[in-house]
C-alpha cells in the first residue's frame, strides 16, 4: 500500500463545540477517500521528536480539501495543539486514506444504522454527507449520544430537513426542556425504533469511546442484529 506522508496546510478552523473543532486542510496530491476512512497526522517537534495520531475524515472527498474533526482531550499531546494552537496557514504531515473496514461503500440501497458517541460522530458525518451528495436511496438512521445540547457537532448537516435521514439524540447528562427522555446512557429502548426499520443485511456503524462502542455493539446483538453487520470504531 505504501502510503506516503504529504504536506497538509491548515486552511480553515471552525468551532463545533467548546472543545471540538472542524479543521480543513489543503493536501496537494490527496488521492481521495471513502466515507468513514481516517488518516494519520504527524507532528514534528524542534528536537526531531514525532507524534502520530489517527483522525477521522468528516466529509467526502473534495479534491485536495480534507476536513477532520478534532476533539481536544485535556492533557493530550496532539489534540489540544491541533484544536487550538496550530496556526491557519501552517503545515503538518498526513498519510492516508486509511482503513477499508469502517467504510460505507454507497453501493447498496438498504437502510443504514449509525450510532455515535460524542465526537465519534465525525466519520458518520462523512457518510451522511456522502449519501446526500450522491443521492443514494439508502435511508440513514442516526442515534447520536452527547452529554448535553452544547455538545452537538454538525448541527446544520444533521438537523437539516431530509426525508432519508432520521436523527435521534440521546443526552447523557443534561437534556433540553423539549427532550422526550431523561438524560442517561443509550438503552435498548433507544435502539429499538431505528433497528426495526433495518433489513437483515443492513450495516450498523458504531463509533465513539471504547466503553460506549462495547455497550452499543452488545445491545445491537441483543436486539437480534447479526454481529457480522455491526462495524465498530473506538477511540481512546
Amino acid at each position, binding site marked *: 500500500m505504501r502510503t506516503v506522508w504529504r504536506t497538509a496546510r491548515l486552511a480553515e478552523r471552525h468551532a463545533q463545540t467548546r472543545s471540538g473543532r472542524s479543521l480543513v486542510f489543503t493536501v496537494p496530491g490527496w488521492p481521495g477517500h471513502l466515507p468513514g476512512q481516517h488518516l494519520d497526522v504527524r507532528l514534528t517537534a524542534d528536537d526531531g521528536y514525532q507524534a*502520530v495520531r489517527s483522525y477521522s475524515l468528516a466529509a467526502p472527498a473534495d479534491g485536495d480539501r480534507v476536513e477532520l474533526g478534532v476533539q481536544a482531550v485535556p492533557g493530550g499531546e496532539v489534540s489540544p495543539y491541533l484544536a487550538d494552537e496550530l496556526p491557519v496557514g501552517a503545515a503538518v504531515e498526513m498519510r492516508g486514506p486509511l482503513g477499508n473496514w469502517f467504510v460505507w461503500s454507497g453501493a447498496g440501497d438498504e437502510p443504514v444504522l449509525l450510532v455515535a458517541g460524542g465526537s465519534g460522530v465525525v466519520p458518520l458525518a462523512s457518510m451522511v454527507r456522502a449519501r446526500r451528495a450522491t443521492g443514494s436511496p439508502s435511508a440513514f438512521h442516526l442515534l447520536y449520544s452527547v452529554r448535553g445540547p452544547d455538545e452537538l457537532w454538525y448541527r446544520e448537516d444533521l438537523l437539516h430537513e431530509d426525508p432519508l435521514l432520521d436523527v435521534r439524540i440521546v443526552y447523557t447528562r443534561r437534556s433540553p426542556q423539549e427532550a422526550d427522555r431523561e438524560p442517561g446512557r443509550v438503552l435498548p429502548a433507544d435502539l429499538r425504533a431505528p433497528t426495526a426499520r433495518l433489513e437483515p443485511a443492513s450495516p450498523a456503524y458504531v463509533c465513539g469511546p471504547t466503553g460506549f462502542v462495547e455497550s452499543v455493539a452488545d445491545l445491537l446483538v441483543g436486539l437480534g442484529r447479526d454481529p457480522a453487520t455491526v462495524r465498530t470504531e473506538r477511540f481512546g
Partner: protein
Amino acid sequence: MADTSDHLDGNCLAGPLSEILALEPTTAWWRCPQCARSGPLAGLHVYGPEPGLTARCPGCAYIALRLVRQGEHVWLTVGGGTGAFRFRVTP
C-alpha cells in the same frame, strides 16, 4: 481477568501497517488459535500506541500481533511469541 484499561481497535493499525504491507490490512480475516473466534483485523483490541502497539483477540486477549516503530525500523511479531521481524522503512 476484567478489562479496566482503555484500548483502541484494529482500525488504527491501518497507517502503521501500511509501511510494511502491500495490501490494506484492516479487512484481513484472522482466527484466534486460542479461542477460535474469528473476524477482521479491524475488530482486534489494540493497546498503545506507546511504547508499542499490541493487538489482541477481542474474545480471549491472545496476542495477534505487536508492532513497534523506531526511527527507520518497524518491528513486527505475529502471534504471542517473541521472535520479531525488523523492517527497514523510510523515515
